């Protein structure tokens, strides 16, 4: 029992890294994704091309490779002069960029699904474009994208364990240590941490969907 407690605590220490990765990535990638989605929908051609190419590159390469690129390429190019003092920071940058690209496409889908008539109605009423977006369109977009977003966010929870490829001490890496010391169960036990976390998120999203269910749109 003592051993179970001490291993749980050590695994929790690793899971803290997963939680930081999850929280910070979400906070930064949600707004960044919206900005990129504006870029991909822009009528200014060069900007549109840049943003869509960016999304293509990020979605078209494995996150694992992106982690390698962010962490190892700068020091390799500068002979070690520039390197991240902290592996977690490098992992965060890779995760934020990756998830912002995915989120931007979800936003784009949501925004483009709003009928043109609503913008036109806004103009007729004399609203500014920004007013139309924030007061009329955005709320409907949020309602529409809750389901695809929750899907992506739950994927993020589990993707955080990928940070181990650049040796971030996340929970799976922590658990593997025990395997090498002759204890097998901790590596499977880590599943419980992810299940509990994702379970809580699922309940939260169900609550949000219910809250937003007061109108049909």
């Amino acid at each position, binding site marked *: 029992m003592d051993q179970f407690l001490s291993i749980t605590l050590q695994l929790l220490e690793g899971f803290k890294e997963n939680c930081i990765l999850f929280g910070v990535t979400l906070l930064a990638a949600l707004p960044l994704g919206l900005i990129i989605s504006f870029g991909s929908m822009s009528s200014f051609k060069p900007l549109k091309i840049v943003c869509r190419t960016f999304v293509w590159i990020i979605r078209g390469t494995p996150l694992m490779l992106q982690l390698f690129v962010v962490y190892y390429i700068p020091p390799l190019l500068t002979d070690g002069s520039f390197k991240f003092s902290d592996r977690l920071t490098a992992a965060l940058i890779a995760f934020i960029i990756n998830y912002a690209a995915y989120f931007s496409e979800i936003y784009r889908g949501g925004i483009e699904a709003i009928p043109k008539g609503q913008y036109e109605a806004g103009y007729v009423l004399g609203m500014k474009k*920004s007013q139309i977006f924030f007061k009329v369109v955005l709320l409907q977009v949020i309602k529409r994208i809750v389901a695809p977003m929750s899907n992506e966010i739950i994927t993020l929870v589990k993707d955080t364990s990928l940070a181990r490829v650049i040796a971030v001490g996340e929970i799976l890496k922590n658990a593997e240590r025990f395997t090498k010391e002759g204890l*097998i169960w901790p590596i499977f036990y880590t599943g419980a941490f992810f299940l509990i976390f994702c379970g809580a998120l699922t309940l939260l999203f169900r609550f949000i969907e219910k809250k937003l269910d007061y109108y049909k749109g």
Partner: protein
Amino acid sequence: MKKIIALLMAGLMTATAFAGCGGSGNKTESKAEDTTAAVATNSASEDDWTYLQNKGSMTIGITYFEPMNYKGADGKLTGFETEFAEAVCAQLGLTANFQEIEWDSKELELSSKAIDCIWNGLTITDERKANMDITVPYMENKQVMVCKKENVEKFSTAEGVANASVVAEAGSAGEDVAKGDAFFANAQFESVESQATALLEVKAGTADIAVIDYVMSIGTLRDGSDYADLAVVESQAFAPEQYGIALRKNSGDTLTKVNEAIQAVADSGKLAEIAEKYNLTDLLLVKPAA
């Protein structure tokens, strides 16, 4: 009029979006450039030993495995390699910093200067010698068979091993043995992800024999571990090999300095003392100078 307003608004939105997008896209790059400029004095021509001395510390790339580097009951890093590396670094006048790495990326870690050496039971091979500077061999290792205790007798002969299923880590010395040694000519081989997975296969009964490092078996097959029902087939040993410390290629003075420090630690009797503590005395290669 409406059209003009719409155009203006669209322009404004595009501009804000552009500013935001451009800014975020360049963030990492400009940060990289700033830092490069700031430490530009750290020139590329500087040799490895000067680099380490200026830094005052040696970052040692490790993975956790008993008895080399592992966390003791008090949660502190300990093990044969840990104590050995600390003794050598003290001799060199450097602080030892241990950094857990992903073993598959060890060369990348080393050349990107994320770590300064790999000191974790690294087997000396010609391939590694060509890509990295490697110190004098300090310890011997061999490949052994691990199976369920009741099968030890059966698997100590080539006839017994015929048709048995054998696993080893992909790309490891164990794999070379299991695939190439005549002893295993009639056995079924499968490669797995790690030595730990190989043991798990035997424990779970999905394989009969795991070919792993002898040093690894010391740490994992002890009493009270989940693998206590497994045992080493002591009568057979394969592919003796030697452990060395890997430094960056063309590390200049560092290699000489580290080799000298290893000998000094051996001469003082400290190395033998550490080896005895972890039951590795028989495997030690660096002897005190007569």
